[in-house]
Structures are given as C-alpha cells and as structure tokens.
C-alpha cells in the first residue's frame, strides 16, 4: 500500500502538532499554572496519528492517561484540551478531568481512564454497542505495555474474539511502566501474537514509523468493518520523557546508558520530516511555514485557556449524575 504524498504530509503535520503541544506544555509546566499531572507522549506521536488516520470521525477511541496525542489525532478540539490542562470551565471536561481525562464526543472520543488497563473493557463494550446497533463503526483502544500486564486485557480480548467484535487493540509498547522496564514484567513477547489469525489478527510494527502503523491499522479496520473480528497491533515505540511531568528523567538512572540517544535516532517526527524532504514532498520553507502555523494555533489555544474562567465552588456538585 502506498500513501499519497499529500496524505503523508498531513500525517506529519498532525504528528508535529502533537509534538509541539507537548513541548509547549513542557516549557510552561514549571510556572505551575497547569495544576494537573501531565503524561507526555513525546516519541509516541506516530502511534496515535497512524491509528486514527485509519478511522472515521464516527469511529470510537478509548484513550488513557497518556492521551494528548490520541485526542488530537482523533480530531479533538485543541483549545478545549489546553483549557482542561488549566482546569478551566471551558475545558473539555470543565475542569473535572485534567490532563488524564479528556473527552470529545463529537469525534468519537468518549473519555480516557487513568486506571491502567481500565479503558480496555470500555472500548470493547463500545465495539459491542456498534455490533448490536448494526453500525459499521469500529472501536480502537490505546493502552501501554503496563496495561498489557493486566488480566483485564485477556478477559476483554477473549470476549472480542468470541463475539468477533469490531475492536482494534493498540498496544503502545513504550518500554516502561513508570520506571519498570517491560522485560522485568513480561516473560517475553505478548502471548496474543500467538493466537490463530482468524481469531485475532495480530501485528507487531515499528510504532515510530507512521506509515507502518497506518498500514496495520487499515488492515485491522477493514477486518473489523467486515465483521471478521478484532485485531491486536503492538507498536514498538519509546517514551522519551519521564512517566509524568515535564522534562527528561535520564538522571534517575533507570534507563541503560545511551538508550535515549539511540531512540532519538529513530524519532518519529524528525524521521518523517527527513523522509518527506528526501522524497521532495516538502521543502524546508514549507516545513517552517507548517511549524509557524502550529505555533500560532497553540498561542491562540493557550491564550484562550488562560483567559477562561475557573469553575467556581457552586459548580462542584454538578454532573455527578446525568440528568
């Protein structure tokens, strides 16, 4: 499958936009105006963008605590996200969710859980709802290698395989759960790669190559829409920053010497820029213009967020129940 140059440029723009938002958060985080524990997805942009590029607007995603990229890639509203980071009334969750609980129902983003693995059965249930309502929508679930430790993944996949649900399980293997390396927690590769393909289509892709992620996601989406059942896509990637908060955590010493530098050579965003330049799909001037446009959009979003009101005490009790 080949991707048109225009599409590849658009994927790049989306990845760059996610990257620049993370960097903007990092640059302002020390000001302590964003009073919410941010989990940055720098280094993992290709997973969110590659998967969501295979989805329609009315398809569902289920996100997690490291979800800024998923939200933007699915088409979530940027100013509402930034306002949520500032816990404003104009935030997507009106200041109740913070960084870990983003939502934009207009684009099929029905929320994100910060309980590791918590979104996996919910996204499976969304797939069940699509099936039972006779819709050709699919549900894509993003979760990390930490969530792949949880038994709920087995339980959910078992049901999805049993009922051939239109669900795409996207394992973002970023190598670490907080400071614990995946090798200390898993006995080897995921057992789900060993399932017969007619029960579960599994793929292991370079999660830092958006073309590879997209290709795998498109196969999974086609299978799901055809009623042929779930897929499991493991995207090998790398968490370039610490578990939570801003900046590098290399000083903590839990990562092997040179590991970060090694993955920097495989950066999904700069790597794609180089490929686009080499192929002649973009030139340096176009790249700079794209970056400038994103910077201005981010400026506007941050201005909007900071100018927005904070929820007052009188709003505390609202929305416990849906009225």
């Amino acid at each position, binding site marked *: 499958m080949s991707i048109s140059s225009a599409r590849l440029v658009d994927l790049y723009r989306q990845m760059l936009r996610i990257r620049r938002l993370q960097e903007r958060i990092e640059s302002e985080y020390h000001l302590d105006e964003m009073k919410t524990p941010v989990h940055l997805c720098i280094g993992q942009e290709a997973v969110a963008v590659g998967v969501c590029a295979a989805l329609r607007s009315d398809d569902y995603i289920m996100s997690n605590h490291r979800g800024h990229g998923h939200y933007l890639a699915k088409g979530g509203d940027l100013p509402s996200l930034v306002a949520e980071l500032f816990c404003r009334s104009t935030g*997507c*969750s009106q200041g*109740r969710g913070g960084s870990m609980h983003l939502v934009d129902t207009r684009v099929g983003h029905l929320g994100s859980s910060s309980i590791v693995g918590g979104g996996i*059965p*919910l996204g499976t249930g*969304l797939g069940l709802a699509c099936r*039972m*309502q006779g819709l050709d929508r699919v549900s894509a679930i993003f979760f990390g290698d930490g969530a792949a430790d949880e038994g709920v993944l087995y339980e959910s996949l078992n049901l999805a395989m049993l009922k051939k649900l239109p669900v795409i399980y996207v394992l973002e293997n970023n190598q670490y759960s907080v400071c614990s390396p995946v090798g200390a927690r898993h006995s080897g590769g995921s057992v789900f790669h060993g399932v017969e393909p007619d029960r579960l289509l599994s793929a292991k892709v370079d999660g830092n190559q958006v073309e590879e992620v997209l290709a795998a996601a498109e196969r999974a989406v086609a299978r799901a829409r055809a009623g042929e059942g779930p897929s499991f896509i493991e995207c090998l990637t790398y968490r370039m920053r610490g578990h939570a908060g801003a900046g590098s955590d290399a000083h903590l010493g839990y990562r092997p010497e040179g590991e970060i530098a090694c993955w920097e050579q495989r950066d999904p965003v700069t790597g794609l820029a180089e490929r686009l330049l080499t192929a002649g799909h973009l030139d340096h001037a176009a790249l700079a213009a794209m970056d400038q446009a994103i910077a201005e959009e981010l400026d506007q979003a941050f201005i909007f967020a900071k100018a927005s009101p904070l929820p007052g005490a009188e709003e505390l009790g609202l929305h416990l129940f*849906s009225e």
Partner: protein
Amino acid sequence: MPWTKIKAEVNEPDYGHAGEGEGRRLDYAAAIHEALDQALSLDPRVFVMGQGVDDPAGMFGSTRDLHLKHGRERVFDTPLAETALTGVAAGAAMGGLRPVYFHNRPDFLFLAMDQLVNHAAKWSYMFAGAVKVPLVLWACIGRGWGSAAQHSQALQGLFFHVPGLKLVMPSTAFDAKGLLMAAIAEDNPVLIIEHRMNFRQKGLVPERAYTVPLGKGALRRAGTDVTIVGVSQMATEAYLAAEELAGLGIQAEVLDPRSLRPLDEDLILSSLAKTGRLVVADSAWKTGGVSAEIAALAAEKGLDLLKAPVRRVCCPDLPTPAGYTLEQAYYPGAAQIVATVRELLRP
C-alpha cells in the same frame, strides 16, 4: 438443605400499599422476569447479559427463556470475567445501549469494583456530563444451605459509599418489577441488590409496564411508638416484628427505603417526628454500613426528634459460617427486632 426448604413459599405480608391492590399474585422471580421481558420488548436498546442468564435455572427464574423470545444477541451468557464484562457493559452503555448485567451473587462484584467504581460511577462527573452510562447491575444476596462466607455477603454498605452509583434494594414483587424498570430507564449506573429470601415470596403485581421511582421509600405499616427501617428482606422481618409487637400493645411504624441512594430521608425523618424512636434493621454487617448511615441521618437531622438512642439490628461483623447451627446464630430476624424494640421501650 435446598432453598425451597429454607423458607416456605409464602405470600408477602398484606401491606395495604395503594399500588399493590391491583394485579395478579406473582412470585418474586416472575415479577423480575416480567420487567425484563417488557423492557426488552419496549426498548431495542435494552439487553441482558450475565453468567447463566440463558441456562435452565435462569437466575432463579428471573431470566429464564428470555433468550428464546428476544434472541441470543440480546440475552446472552458471558465468560466468567466480571472485571472486563462490567467494563464491557459500561462501554456498551456509553455507546448508546442499556445493558442489564446479572450476577448470581454480590460476592462476585468485588471483581467488578474497578470498572463499576473507578469507571462507570465516575464517567459522568469526570467528563462533566458529556457521556452517560445507563447501566444496570443486578446481584442477589445468598443465604442458607451452607452458602458460607463467599456466597452470602450483603455488600450494600460498600456500594452505598460510592458517589455516582444509585443503589436499589427491593423487598416486594411489586417493587422488584417497578424498580427494575425504573433502573433500566435511568441514565446513570444503578446497582440492584436482591435477596434470595425475597424469592420465596409472592406479591400482587400489575401486568402493565410501570416504574417505581428511585429515591422514594414506602410506608409498610403505620405506628406511633417506634420507627423500624428495614432494608431489603429485613423490611419483611420488620413487618412481622411489628405485627407481633402490636399484640404486646406496641405500635411500630415500618419503613422500606427501597432505594438507598438516593435515600428517602424525608420519609424517615417525618416518621421519627411521629415516633421519636428508631430501629434500623439491615441484612448486612453493622460497622460502617447502611444502618450506620441511617443512624447518622437521625443524629444529624433528627436529634431533637429522638426520645431514645438509635438501635440497630444487623449481622455480626463476621464472615458467614456454613453450618446451620452457626448460621442460625448469625442471622437476625423478626425475633431480634421485637427484642430490640421491647428493650428500647422498656420504661
């Protein structure tokens, strides 16, 4: 000893409740069955899932053969995976359906806690009402036949603690049907905790589809000397106790809250204004539970109404023993309520 021998099949006490004057006499399971059947017929978004809902036992008869009428797509057995399946049900609810997820026993809900408490109950609040979760979970407290410590737990106190979760505990066939239909129509997660002993009772149930509003308790018997709040099957025990007390010249008022969250506080407080005395009877442990919360309600909002300390009749703070002699010592009933009231009223 099989369930059928533990408690004879009996008619519910005649509460003289306005809504129960009409209808046929149905057993408790048939009332639930009729609610499900009607909800499945009236609303294509409704579906029923759970371990064994389509088996010959059919959840004590509550779900029996519903899959034959409404199809296996809408009434289906599940893997034994309470954690994920609770999340699957919640996710399906977010996606526009109205799942009713049956559990044989509340004991198994411990496995569902993460999805129920961390997710379903919080989703509306966390996302400022952007996504609703019209989910019904149903479980039935076991008792007798040596059910023992892991098949008889009355866990309403744990779930009562959780904001964002509505909690319903019927005691009559009329309410079992009406509250289930109300729960299915509700846009928020509702946990219905039934009691196995209620399933031995028959009551008057109208054939039509109707709802009993959540948050509205029922006056089962009017009285002037003491208010007895009976939760779930203890509402029946409280009524039986009140009948016995009447023979001793004590007029007890019996209240059945029917739903615990929301709790009909007005009903309890207005009764206290009349009687000045409160006994709370719950089928669960005493410490930190439903009886404690209702006692706290009296202390916080009704202290000047009280003529005597609040008393509670609950199970001891112990796991349930299997052996029948120990079981007999474990469970309180009408006799303990009578003794407690008499002690309370002793001059």
